[in-house]
């Protein structure tokens, strides 16, 4: 029975954790901005290496709204962001679609673990960036190489953490479930999945972080649209300000996608959600 009271607890937990702003967390960014401003304002560091924060802010606003035509990228933030986000979600989606089921199978079934785990870990030792040359041979530059790199890089943490989480469900919880009448399927959906959820979410978050990293790598090989493409393009046009603005965009979108994951988890498991930040 899902009831009013129960959802009340959920909202409470949620706002307890995220409802308050943490002033200490803002102190460091503010300090960095001040230092950045001070070292650039009197020309100690020239603008073509590191523009002033105010200028970056202006270029960023122009990138978003397109009202000043400061750079060739004026007003294109949404398009480039959407291109990048959709690549991240597709690549991450492939990784999760493969990593979650394989991870759970490895974690719960010894025969599956013996069969696939050693091989997967062998592939895992190849650094993701090491796949770039062969990916370019197989998929050409751009779109498909990017998706391949993201999917590959994000797969491993998702797989490893799901397997670890599924394997470390306390046996007594499984006994309790079976004793209370759970069959194989409900045991999986009502005990094993929720009990391994914290580890699974940790894997998804690591995978999402890597997705953004490999997005940039893939997009640098050459795509028409995307924040990585903007960075590469702006470098050739000598627009350091745009490179930095694109980096900031990636940081923000990376944080937003991470928050989406943690929020979904908190809604799914309000109690355990407190342990994830």
């Amino acid at each position: 029975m899902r009831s009013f009271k129960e959802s009340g607890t959920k909202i409470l937990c949620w706002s307890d954790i995220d409802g308050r702003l943490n002033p200490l967390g803002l102190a460091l960014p503010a300090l960095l901005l001040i230092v950045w401003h001070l070292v650039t304002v009197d020309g100690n560091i020239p603008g073509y290496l590191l523009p002033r924060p105010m200028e970056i802010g202006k270029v960023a606003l122009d990138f978003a709204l397109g009202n000043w035509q400061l750079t060739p990228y004026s007003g294109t933030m949404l398009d480039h962001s959407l291109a990048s986000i959709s690549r991240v979600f597709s690549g991450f989606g492939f990784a999760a679609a493969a990593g979650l089921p394989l991870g759970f199978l490895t974690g719960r079934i010894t025969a599956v673990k013996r069969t696939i785990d050693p091989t997967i870990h062998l592939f895992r030792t190849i650094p993701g960036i090491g796949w770039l040359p062969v990916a370019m041979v197989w998929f050409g530059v751009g779109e498909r190489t990017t998706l391949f790199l993201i999917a590959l890089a994000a797969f491993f943490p998702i797989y490893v953490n799901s397997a670890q989480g599924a394997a470390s469900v306390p046996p007594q919880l499984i006994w309790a479930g079976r004793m209370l009448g759970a069959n194989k399927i409900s045991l999986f959906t009502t005990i094993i999945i929720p009990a391994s959820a914290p580890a699974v979410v940790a894997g998804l978050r690591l995978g999402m972080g890597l997705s953004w990293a490999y997005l940039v790598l893939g997009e640098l090989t050459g795509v028409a649209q995307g924040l990585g493409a903007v960075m590469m393009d702006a470098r050739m046009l000598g627009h350091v300000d745009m490179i930095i603005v694109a980096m900031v965009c990636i940081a923000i979108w990376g944080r937003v996608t991470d928050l989406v994951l943690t929020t979904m988890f908190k809604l799914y498991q309000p109690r355990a959600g407190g342990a994830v930040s």
Partner: protein
Amino acid sequence: MKNGTGHYLLIDGVSKTFPGQIGRERLKVLDEINLYADEGEIIGIVGPSGCGKSTLLNIIAGFVPPDRGRVIFCGKHVQKPSPERAVVFQTAVLFPWLTVWDNISYGLKRRGEKNIARLVKRYIQIVGLDSFEYYYPDQLSGGMQQRVALARVLVLNPRLLLMDEPFASLDALSRLTMSSFYLTSGRS
């Protein structure tokens, strides 16, 4: 309820060993245990810590198989857990991601019960946890957790109640009429 073995619950020559420390021989925990219980009986198993009370309970519950011997319950060879043989663990072993209410309704949902709300409410009252329905296990004291664990199995109306060191839930239990239960409890 008499049957071929003649007893409601029969523990027949049950032995159990566990792997010993590296280089040592296996640890003999249960050696040829024979025990029977009839309908309505309450049995306490007493022994020092580490003598195997929980292990015996786990075998009766069907969680772990004995090395030798067998457990017969209501004429059937026990081979897996069942809601008929309810267990209250030594530590409560509640589902930490579920509220008190959802922990207690868990078994009823698996059974496809219709009157879940009414039953859960009643058993929450019986174990004295009204107004704690929407607490999570980690917000409860140890004794309260034990009472949730008790309610979670009693609501399924089991035929055998196996309780591992049930002191924490004893007073809740005493408020019940136990005549319909077959009770085996392990305690040190």
